[in-house]
């Protein structure tokens, strides 16, 4: 029933964008991928639309990351271009730095811990996260506890280490 998907769309779209954003780190791209996921849901008509969307989105983000890795060198070359005219406002720089640090910290989590954390942050329940990740429901709390601790520790270590971690 397309109306069901429409409901899910209204309730889940922002969370899916957020989830994807933490994977591709590009807001527009995250929106594109989220819309793509919903469009695929319209074709596939999965039973559990919400869960299905997050799995498909995670897969798309992973494909995206691979492609991004291939293009990384290309972009590195572009970044070496002098860009003196452009100047960002202070708070934009801060937001940028902050994002880089959190991203670096997230990268240090295991894929499983990171996935559980991002799914929780996207508004999924423990039951949904369990179904999504194949983890036992009883293990979700432990997984999230570990993920949160590592995220905070990695972030703090990144701050102490200056650029060291943030760059990685």
């Amino acid at each position, binding site marked *: 029933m*397309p109306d069901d*998907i*429409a409901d899910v*769309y*209204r309730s889940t*779209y922002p969370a899916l*964008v*957020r989830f994807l*954003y*933490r994977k591709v780190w590009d*807001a527009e791209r995250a*929106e*594109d991928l989220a*819309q*793509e996921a*919903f*469009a*695929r849901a*319209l074709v*596939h008509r*999965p039973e559990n639309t919400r*869960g*299905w969307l997050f*799995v*498909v989105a995670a*897969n*798309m983000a*992973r*494909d995206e990351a691979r*492609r991004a890795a*291939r*293009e990384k060198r*290309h*972009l590195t*070359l*572009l970044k*070496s*271009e002098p*860009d*003196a*005219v*452009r100047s960002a406002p202070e708070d934009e720089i801060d937001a940028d730095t902050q*994002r880089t640090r*959190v991203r670096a*910290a997230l990268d240090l989590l295991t*894929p499983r811990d990171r*996935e559980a954390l991002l799914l929780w942050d996207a508004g999924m329940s423990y039951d949904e996260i369990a179904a*999504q*990740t*194949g983890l036992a429901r009883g293990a*979700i*709390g432990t997984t*999230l*506890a570990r*993920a*949160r*601790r590592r*995220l*905070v520790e990695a*972030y703090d270590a990144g701050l102490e280490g200056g650029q060291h971690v943030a760059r990685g």
Partner: protein
Amino acid sequence: MSHVDEGTLHAYLDGELPSDERTALEAHLGQCATCRQTLTEQRVLLERASALLGSTRPLERPAPPFEQLRRARQRSPWHVRMPFAWAASIAVALGIGYLFRTPEQLTPNAALAPPAGPVALRERAKASPVRQRQSARADKVVRSEGTASTDSYIGPQSRVRDVGAVAMNSSQLRNATPAAAEPAPSVIVSGAPALGAVRRMPVTTQWPVISRGTAASLLGADPVGLPGLSTRRIQRNPTGDGTVVVEQTLDSATVIQIFQRPATALASTDSSAAFTPRMLFDERDRAARERAPARLDRLARFVGRLRVEIAGPLSLDSLNRLLEQVEPLP
């Protein structure tokens, strides 16, 4: 009751502990100062982690209307990306390049022909006098190219051109002073288009040309392409694997190939088709895929039921942006 583990405390804080366990936990917390202390610490940790994640939220924009998504699967109107202006800037860059070409340089047809003699082509490109007129900025890029690791897929010659083309489209148009901007077109016409074309364009000269109607029936959907560009021809793969290629001209010397086939014919690489929850963490599967040779190193996306790939003598960045504009042809 012994001390409570962190996982249980997080489930409690998350409001996800079943009611019987919650009751037991609260009773225990009433008696155990250690666990109360731990709970406080874990709450602080949880809030910090949430705050960190919260600090990286994307700017939240309203979702495009669902009907629109269902109807066309196109970008929402407030995604102001000006596809035509962007395509035009490439066309202009290439057009300038065309004007600067010297007579001994390759003809457009040669540029798109199958790789008859890449070495000879490269020598000619190197010998091109236009090449000598590169800007200092381009030289810098070339030098950094020299120190970078090799790329098995895109040769250095085409890379120089890639960088030039992108610079033309983004930073140069925005930032450069007139004096600095002037030499940039010579980067774009450095003779590399031919090489870029030969190396990156898959050879489809032997593919039978088909009508649009035939393409639609092969694909089970309207063929897709870039809106506003003229379609040069449509061909099908002679092996009958259902692949159709739409060739469109960006300008007189630049042809973009848009490969497409029904997504169902490609179940193994359609990430949604073989859906299982465990796919997320199947490291073995991931490793196997990464070992596979990057044979199809073209960019790809799904448009409706079609898996679409794009190829052409442009940078990956540019191709990617073009790919985003692909939609069913009218």
